[in-house]
């Protein structure tokens, strides 16, 4: 029988995640955890690929505190089945340097083993996130050659 992560473990992981406390988060990390946050790491250093428990702990100990003061997830969907969880919602944070509130769509797909995270994949509405991160709209109008002029966005 393969491992099935209890929902209570997933919820406890998210409580640790929101605390941004590396020690609390470390309790949920497998030694070989693979942690990937899709997005332009050259603009948002919270994006990137971290391999191994020490690297992920370092992300929460150094990278996150330099970028963000607060992190809160408004989860709209949290599915748990087998060794996976999937979350869809909105992540609200405060950028440390500017004190701007940043809020954008996010989803997580997490695989657990024996109560620990072995794989974490995060998809953000990263363009929206980047624009909030830099505090400016990115002008896409000159580049939007693939858009269809007669389409009205709903």
């Amino acid at each position, binding site marked *: 029988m393969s491992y099935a992560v209890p929902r209570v473990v997933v919820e406890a992981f998210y409580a640790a995640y929101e605390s941004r406390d590396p020690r609390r988060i470390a309790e949920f990390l497998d030694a070989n955890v693979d942690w990937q946050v*899709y*997005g*332009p*790491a*050259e*603009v948002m*250093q919270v*994006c*990137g*690929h*971290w391999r191994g428990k020490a*690297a992920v702990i370092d*992300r929460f100990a*150094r*990278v996150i505190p*330099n*970028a963000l003061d607060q992190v809160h997830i408004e989860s*709209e*969907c949290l*599915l*748990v*089945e*087998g060794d*996976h*969880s*999937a979350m*869809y919602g909105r992540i609200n944070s405060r*950028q440390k*340097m*500017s004190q701007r509130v940043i809020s954008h*769509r*996010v*989803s997580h*797909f997490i*695989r657990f083993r024996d109560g620990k995270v072995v794989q974490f*994949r995060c*998809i*953000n*509405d*990263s*363009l*929206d*996130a*980047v624009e909030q*991160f*830099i*505090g*400016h709209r*990115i002008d*896409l*109008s000159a*580049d*939007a*050659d*693939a*858009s*269809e002029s007669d*389409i009205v*966005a*709903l």
Partner: protein
Amino acid sequence: MNGHETNPRPGQDSTPRASLQTAFERFFAAYATRDAARVVPFLHDDVEWTVSGPVDVLPFCGLHRGRAAVMDLIGRQIPAVFRVFSFVPDATLIDGDQVATLTRQSARRAIDGRVISFRVANFFRFRDGKLIENLSLLDSFDAVEQVIGHPLTVPESLVPDMGDLVSL
């Protein structure tokens, strides 16, 4: 999906989860073809389909309400930007009335046929064996760069200074 389609055959698992899995697999097989006519039988009358992203570059982003709007989305609006030809699920979860998928999709740009690829998260909700809600999310910065065909320009002066941090 009608009642006939959801009735289990003798020996089949008739739990709510099994029924949802059957409904989802039929819907997903139709959706993977990107043929709106094949998808529509699986859509609830009151379906809502939301794609997060910038509508000025990806005009299909936004909220689409009702069968006709979702058919137009799948049959016209998305193919006007790109045509998906590969649809590979990395993860699929079923919990309650919901199904979450993480897929790797490959597509050709409508304008020139150039291949692009991206990951998409979908959160589907079913009611009475039919799709009532879909929430789609993709790495929009990457998707926009691929659709417009070149990197987005972010002035260095606007990139937050992170001291001695190096992106990994």
